[in-house]
């Protein structure tokens, strides 16, 4: 019986933190700008009172959420993201508050793709998505050579066909 690794140990690229932070700044920035515009319109045109209340409430929540997404979440996410691929299984483990551990048999992998958006490209990173018959899983930020190697590795492991398919 071969050795079974029960928890994955590979990490993402540490640059992931910066990337998540930047993308959080961008998306939250846009959201806050829209809210600010609405608030300005509200005060100039004197909309109904409850709209003002609603807007301020949403703004307060958005600011809190932005703080969480920009300052806290990226490092927590990085700290708790692990993956591993061996001949038999792809394992993903992530989540700080709610810990999730996914085990995907290689034989059930249907496709693997590497993707690179503008932010990832700036840091020379790739994300790897693995599609199975049921769902799709993404490993968010890996250095180029690691990502490409992982992709090829998964592709070669996934070649085994189970009778069921």
């Amino acid at each position, binding site marked *: 019986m071969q050795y*079974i690794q*029960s928890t994955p140990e590979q990490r993402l690229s540490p640059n992931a933190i910066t990337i998540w932070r930047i993308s959080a700044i961008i998306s939250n920035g846009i959201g806050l700008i829209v809210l600010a515009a609405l608030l300005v319109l509200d005060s100039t045109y004197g909309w109904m009172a409850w709209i003002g209340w609603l807007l301020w409430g949403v703004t307060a929540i958005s600011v809190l959420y932005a703080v969480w997404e920009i300052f806290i979440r990226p490092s927590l996410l990085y700290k708790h993201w692990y993956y591993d691929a061996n001949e*038999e*299984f792809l394992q993903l483990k992530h*989540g700080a*508050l*709610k*810990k*999730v*551990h*996914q*085990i*995907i*048999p290689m*034989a*059930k992998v249907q496709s693997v793709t590497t993707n690179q958006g503008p932010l990832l490209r700036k840091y020379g990173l790739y994300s790897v998505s693995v599609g*199975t*018959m*049921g*769902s799709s899983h993404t490993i968010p930020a890996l250095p180029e050579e690691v990502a490409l190697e992982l992709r090829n590795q998964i592709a070669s492991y996934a070649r*085994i*066909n*189970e*009778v*069921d*398919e």
Partner: protein
Amino acid sequence: MNEMRRQHPLAMLWSLWKLVKNSFAFIVFLFILRHGSASTWIMYGRIVFYVAIAFSVISIIWSWFTLRYTADDKAFQIYSGVFNRTRRTIPYTKIQNVSRHTSLFHRLFRVTSIRFETGIKGDDATFQLQVVSLSESERLEKVVAGHKSEANVASDAVEPNEEPVMRPEHVTLEEDIQLPVKEELERNVHYKSTRKDIFKASFTSLSFLVLIPILGSLYSSIKDFFPDEKVTESILLTWLDTWWITALIITGLIAVSIMLGIVRTFVKYGDFQISSDRKRIYITKGMLEQTAFSILKERVQAVKITQSPMKRLLGLAEVELTTAGGVGESEQEVNSLYPFLPVKQAYDMISEILPSYQVTQEMQKLPRKSLWLRMLIPSWVWIIATGLLFYFKPVILGQNQAWWMISAILLLWIVICRITDFLHTRYVLNQNFIQLRTGALTSTLYISKREKVIEVQITRNLLQRWFGVASIQTVNRAKPVLHHTLNDIPLEAVEAFQLWYMERSQNVQTR
């Protein structure tokens, strides 16, 4: 054997019938409701209608001519399309289950419709012939079935060194193949519905509750007759005032609805028969419209046994086979073995039909701490409902204080649901099987084999970590994908679950 075939010519008639059915509303509107109308837009509407009908008729005939198929030794080749020509190849090995549906139309002309389902996503996943002669459908089914046995020989040959446990099954397979494929394999009938069964069943489905919407529509149509609302109300009120008329009406309606329920159940589930040979399971049902379904035993992804509260009272259960291919339109769902089986018989039948499935009745309960954990989880439904009730403070039945009473009843209900869910929850890992039972009102027992579970997931949220428990989730092939979750099981069991799954390659056959 390999010549190109077209559908039965009656397929055109079938499509025409469907066309008439679909355009019925237009016909009624344009030619009956606006019969004498001379307005221009009605005239234009009629012209558009004629053109559309002409086009549809032409396209029906044309597409009948262009749809051709052959069954070669490996796959169905299907050619279709009027303007965009498509050629599809559906290999027999990808076909998950076969179903035949014989509506009244089909019975009238002694033909049937057949559907071959694959586990692939998208519209092109099925090969369906709307109208096909009985002999042709037999032939197609045999071609697919015959090919499958050969596929198994091939997989045997490729992998000589497999687990000894698997041996006996394969020996029988080889024997199968020595028989000429055409020869019928012996079929065992496991269940045939009797009149008594169906009679009993018609009560559990609570189908007489159909009455409520019917009554509602009746009331509104009466209202339409008397546009003045006060009139209807006064008529109703005077009726309701005399109690015995009310009682008579209500009993009459209940009797009628029970009768309707019985008729409905008879039509739907009458002549239910479950049979199997060594390799496949066959389910047929229906009195007016007949549906037949067959699946290779190896392709059963999971088995589900569900019990609604009503069925639990009567000791009945529904056994459902999960298959990777879809099961067609919802009204002709046939993946369920008889929905009203006595529990004992249900368990026996699983081991009878699917000898490779072992069902054990001994399952583990959740530890008590899981119950405390479940009690601690805030119920968003209750919080939101109470918030709304507190804000609006509705007066119900003259009760000013109704809001907190409703809130309390809701809370009690939620707590009871959580407790019954806790009591229903059981789990066990039995060699290469997993059995999970969950559900508050309707309990579901899920059984699957390790090699049929395509993915697992273990999650632990904050509260679960404090209590030292976790949730497990399995994923099976189905349409849509079947996720099954069991919450709050102790960590030791979770570890065992993970190890159990990671040893799956022991039972998996590869090719």
